């Protein structure tokens, strides 16, 4: 993996290189980060520093689908907690966890700018707004 990552052409920009690496091969393992550091000619702690700074760069393994539910006030006011509880119940795992079958990673995030459709969440890059606990099962069903 290290050698392969080093051979892939990466942009001269740590953040972009990490974004591309994550899109290409998933979570940013120590091996991936070391490979990027070598190919960019920067210390690996610089790469780790960037990777750990941004919430959408993941140094942990993720499920095939990532659920990101907004926990900020505009969603909280619209019964966001009930939606979070419904997802926890449907998945059998709480926020910050991945289901055993790796189908879903469940995360709570800060304001995603969908407050006019609160409560809201992103699954991968898809927008889901005006959520209720009753809608959750039907939405999750579409993600395999």
């Amino acid at each position, binding site marked *: 993996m290290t050698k392969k990552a080093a051979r892939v052409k990466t942009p001269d920009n740590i953040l972009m290189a990490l*974004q591309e690496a994550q899109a290409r091969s998933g979570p940013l393992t120590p091996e991936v980060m070391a490979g990027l550091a070598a190919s960019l000619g920067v210390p690996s702690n610089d790469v780790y520093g960037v990777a750990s700074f941004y919430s959408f760069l993941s140094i942990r393994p993720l499920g095939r689908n990532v659920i990101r539910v907004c926990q900020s006030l505009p969603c909280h006011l619209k019964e966001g907690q009930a939606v979070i509880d419904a997802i926890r119940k449907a998945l059998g795992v709480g926020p910050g966890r991945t289901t055993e079958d790796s189908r879903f990673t469940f995360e709570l995030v800060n304001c995603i700018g969908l407050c006019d459709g609160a409560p809201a969440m992103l699954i991968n890059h898809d927008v889901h707004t005006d959520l209720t606990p009753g809608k959750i099962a039907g939405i999750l069903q579409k993600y395999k």
Partner: protein
Amino acid sequence: MPQEKVVLRNCGAIDPADIKTHRAREGFKALEKARGMTPEEVISEIKTSGLRGRGGAGFPCGIKWEGARNSPGDEKYVIGNADEGEVGTFKDRYIIQNDPFSLVEGLAIAGYAVGARQGYIYLRWEYSYLLDLLRGAIDQARAAGYLDGFRIEVRQGAGAYVCGEESALMESVEGKRGEARYRPPFPTVAGLFQKPTTINNVETLMNVAPIVLKGGAWYAGMGTERSRGTKVFSVSGDVARPGVYEMVLGSPLRELVEGLAGAKDIKMIQIGGATGRIIPYDQIDAPLAFESYLGAGAITVYNRSRGVLEIVGRTMEFLAEESCGKCTPCRQGTEWLVETLDRFRRGEGAARDIGYMQVLADTMALSSLCGLGQAACSGLVDTLKYFRDDYDRGISGK
């Protein structure tokens, strides 16, 4: 006062994926007109308009452009800030979804005025679903010949609230951790890659084409003396009709939250998101303007069932999480406030902590490196003033 659509002029009226529909509504006419003027004339028109930054800080746009224009150097940059992460803000998402072309046009005019051949639009990761639409708008404008000699690149964020702050944003575009920079030097002198740079909010750039077409004096004819033109508001929370509304600056808050958004039984209103002000209902007739309350125009309404300490506490939790950690007052201050507010929420607060919170709020405002820490306590200070009873009830033994 009804809505007045300057920024949102094309929203709903064009197909955001088809430049022809935008051109049918005077699209790119302002860019053509600007290129027939000198850059100094364009900047002069913006200065006359009184346009101030719509991302929250309210810095005069024309002066920012002039600063970068006059800074020595052949290589300069203009950046469109589409990293709106302020809690309760979604206007820039709405703008890009409905009229990405006017953003491209505004940035191209900025590039011409400043003397930049390269522009960036920094799009927050949370809006990845807008990437194709935005890149499509840039590609169509380029194919139509509007971007000759000017290149626009979209850069994606990766989930960091602080990157909406201009110096952190530039660090992020350079590929680094999004930590705020010490200033001076200011971006107009040494910004992106240490070159003269202007960073404007999406909404600020949306105002540029109408100002160039109709003249700065026309724009300055709207609003108050210190707040010219219109402002786009994102209204959410306890309202019947959450959404995006555009009003002339100086309009009363009441018309927006009660009239347009249909709020009832209001207890308080948070204006400007997590770093914004929190005002009680009896100030509902305040004008929406830089000289009173505005920020980036996020309006979160709370009805009488809502608890002050929960709102302030959750806001502080957000800020503590999003603090970049570079400067001590912000990193440590937000953490201590989370813990202290948590004790008040549990009814275990200490009376002396109210004084400590006030002192810490002053310290953070004076000594934090960027707007996050400087304004982190705005809502705390407001609620200590207007809703002191709620804090007193959180004191242990009361």
